[in-house]
Every structure is written in structure tokens, then in C-alpha cells.
């Protein structure tokens, strides 16, 4: 600290942090691709009070909501290899579980976590849609699937968009916990580089800026998309 900031390392750290962005984005996108449909279906099961599925969803949500992500990571990271080990041994599959790439754990952990969040996002959005929209769709001869696809979901997305944005940004930030299982994302890469000369302040600053840029860009993207979807809500001047 006494020597002040090491600007050249800061610059270097910034690019190291940037090099972690693709991994962070990949994990985020895969988690969303899995969580969006799964979350929506489980939200429907809660909305229509489908027995069993709805209870499972509710236990699942309270588990995810009531525990820190880092704890979920520890549990999944330690239990999955054990289960796989038993499975692989039983069926004589020659994969060394300790060589499984950490990104697979990231996919599992973050899909698992995000799905639970999205169930609640979609459920509250579903509740905000007037049942009359669905009835009108049926009355003009749309099937239930058509009514959802053409009438309910487009309106629901507009309602859900701010919460989906928050969930996505939270997910991006949460991927930084991937360091706990050596995921080569933004935080871990930069910290490792800082270890060499103890330039932690510079590293943290670089990480800070990269997340800030990334999250701001994502938020901006959501805003634009939301405005496009919500055109119909604008009143004529």
C-alpha cells in the first residue's frame, strides 16, 4: 500500500479478469437455459396446485432460499462425486470422478439455485395475469398450449422482466463463488495472478470493475428488451 497502486498490474489484472468473462457468461447462460423452462413448469405446478410436484417445488424453494449459496456449493461439490463414484463403480464406467471439470459442478449448482428463484418469479408473474386473458383465448378456439404461448407468456414476460433481470445479475455475481471448486472464472483467475506479488488491492479493483461493467451491460440489455416487449403499455401521447 505504501507504494500506492501498481497501475501497470492493475491494467494487467483488468485483462486477466476480462479473460474470465466467457466462463462466467457460459455458466450464467447454461444455468438460465436450464432454469427458465424448469422454473416455469414448476411455477405452473404451484399455480395450478398440482399435487406432489407442487410440494416438491415448495420444499426445494425453501431449501434454496434458506441456505447460503456457498453451503449449497459445498454440499453439491462433496456429495455428487460420492454418488457418481458409487454409480460408476457399479456400472464399471471408467471415468475418474476427480477429473471431472469444475464447470460441470458450476452448471449443476447454479441451475439448481436459479431454478428455485425463477419458480417464485414466474409464480408471482402468473398471478398477475388476469384469468380472463386465458378464457378469451380459449373462447376464440386456442388450445391451452396456444393460449400460453401466444397470450399468457408474452404478457407474463413483461411482468417478470425486472425480476428476471435481478435474478440474472445475482447469478452472474454468484458465479464468483465458483472459486470454491476451482472454477476458472473472473475472481479466481485474477486472485491467482495477484498471489505472485501480493497485489491484492489492484486485483480486487479490477474484479470490481469487470463485474460492474458486466452487470451494467446485462441490466441495460434487459431494459432495452423490456421496453420493446412492453410497447403495448405505452399510452398514445
Amino acid at each position: 500500500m505504501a507504494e500506492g497502486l501498481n497501475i501497470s498490474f492493475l491494467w494487467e489484472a483488468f485483462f486477466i479478469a476480462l479473460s474470465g468473462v466467457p466462463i462466467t457468461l457460459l455458466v450464467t447462460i447454461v444455468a438460465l437455459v436450464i432454469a427458465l423452462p424448469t422454473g416455469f413448469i414448476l411455477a405452473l405446478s404451484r399455480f395450478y396446485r398440482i399435487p406432489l410436484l407442487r410440494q416438491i417445488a415448495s420444499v426445494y424453494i425453501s431449501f434454496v432460499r434458506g441456505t447460503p449459496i456457498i453451503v449449497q456449493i459445498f454440499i453439491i461439490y462433496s456429495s455428487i462425486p460420492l454418488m457418481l463414484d458409487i454409480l460408476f463403480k457399479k456400472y464399471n464406467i471408467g471415468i475418474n470422478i476427480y477429473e471431472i471439470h469444475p464447470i460441470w459442478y458450476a452448471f449443476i449448482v447454479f441451475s439448481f439455485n436459479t431454478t428455485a428463484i425463477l419458480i417464485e418469479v414466474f409464480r408471482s408473474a402468473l398471478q398477475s395475469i388476469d384469468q380472463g386473458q386465458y378464457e378469451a383465448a380459449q373462447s376464440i378456439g386456442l388450445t391451452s398450449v396456444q393460449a400460453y404461448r401466444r397470450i399468457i407468456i408474452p404478457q407474463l414476460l413483461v411482468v417478470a422482466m425486472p425480476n428476471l433481470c435481478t435474478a440474472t445479475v445475482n447469478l452472474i455475481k454468484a458465479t464468483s463463488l465458483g472459486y470454491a471448486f476451482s472454477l476458472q472464472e473472473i475472481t479466481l483467475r485474477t486472485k491467482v495472478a495477484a498471489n505472485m506479488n501480493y497485489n491484492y488491492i489492484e486485483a480486487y479493483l479490477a474484479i470490481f470493475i469487470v463485474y460492474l461493467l458486466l452487470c451494467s451491460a446485462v441490466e441495460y440489455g434487459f431494459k432495452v428488451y423490456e421496453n420493446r416487449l412492453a410497447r403495448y403499455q405505452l399510452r398514445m401521447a
Partner: protein
Amino acid sequence: MLEVSDVHKSFGENDVLKGVHIQVDKGDVVVILGPSGSGKTTLLRCINFLEKADRGKLALHDTSLPLNTASKKEIHKVRQSVAFVFQNYNLFHHKTALENVTEGLIIGRKVAKKEAEKIGREALTKVGLSDKYDAFPNQLSGGQQQRVGIARAVALSPDIILFDEPTSALDPELVDEVLGVMKNIAEEGTTMIVVTHEMSFAKDVANKVIFMDGGVVVEEGTAEEIFKKPKKERTRQFLRRVLPEEYIYSI
């Protein structure tokens, strides 16, 4: 053409429909009157399977179906020929007036987009909205929205249109434009069942008036018969409450 019989429906302990029978012939304009809670909305919803009746039969043209156990396919078939106009319009908020009208044609009926748009524009012109094709519902007044709702039903050229209190959510000054449109399509020979509290519409347009109370049809007849010489005391009491004074005196 359409006949429903022995319609029963209860919500929990509340027996809302207790064996209703109505029959509608081609070109009929049937108005259903009755006090609040008498089951008028529920009856219309059962006919279109928006509500599942506990018992009852529906005969449309030459097919007959159970109201409580009809299959999805059968229900879909009925909805192809029975359109519904809702009390609170239920326009699709995210679609323009024209898209609201063409949705059922393009998606429900698989009509080509060009053709559907032509039909849609004609229907909107018929209800006096030729300048509002591209307006979204929240850019329209209640009366305009309900006229889009009517165009959406008309465009499907259904055999019969069910109206559930189409004007009761409207400001008084907007009621006439909607009733006018309904009168026009009635004069074109459209078969319709209309639940309404607009007695003038019942008097001028209906060729059959049904009075419901307590989940049963109490009395039915021509507008003349029901308004001028009601047979049942319950009908007389109801009319005394709802008819404008000058009309009472003219009886």
C-alpha cells in the same frame, strides 16, 4: 339450432343452476334477464365450457354432448361455432385491435394471414373502428374496446354469439355505441344470446326474452309477452324494480 337442457351447476354448497333449459333457433336474439346472482353468467360460461357444468346436455346443430364430460376435442369443436363477448372485454393487452381480431382466425382456424387480416379489417369496419386497426387496447375507450371484442367474435363467423353483460362495465355515455353495433349485427341475422340489464335493447331487438331467478328459468316469451303481461309474480316484481317509470305506466 342450439339447445341446452337440464343444466346443473353448484359452487360448493351454492346451487347456482338447478336444471336450466333454453332453446335458440337460427336468427334468434335471445335476451336473458334476471337479478344479480341468478346464474346468468354461469349459464353462458357453461355453454362455452369456460365453466364445467355438473350435469346437462348441449345440442348444437345435429350433435349432442354432455356438458360435464365432453372431451377436449368436442369442446374445441363447440367453440368453433360459439363465440363469447365478455363483460370486461378481455382483449389481449399485448395485441393491436386487428391482431386481437385475427388471432382466432390465424391460430385457432389456420386461416392464412393475409386472408385473416382482410376479414379482421372488415369486422373492425363493421363495428365502426376502421381508424383503429393498430391501436392497442389501452389506447381505446371502454366502448371501443368492447366493439373490438364484438369484432373478434364476429370475425370468426360463429353460428351464435354469447354476450355477458357487454355494456355493464361502460360509462353510461358509451353504452349506446355498443348497443348500436349489437343491434346492427342482430339485424344481419346473427344468432345471439345476450345477458343484459338494458331493457331498451331487450324490448327493441330481442325476439325472445328469458327471465331467470334462483338458478331456473322462471318465464320466457316474446319481449311483448314478458314486459306487457308477465305471468309470474317473480317476473312482475323484477320488472317493477328495473323498468323505467314511464314504461311501467305505459303497461
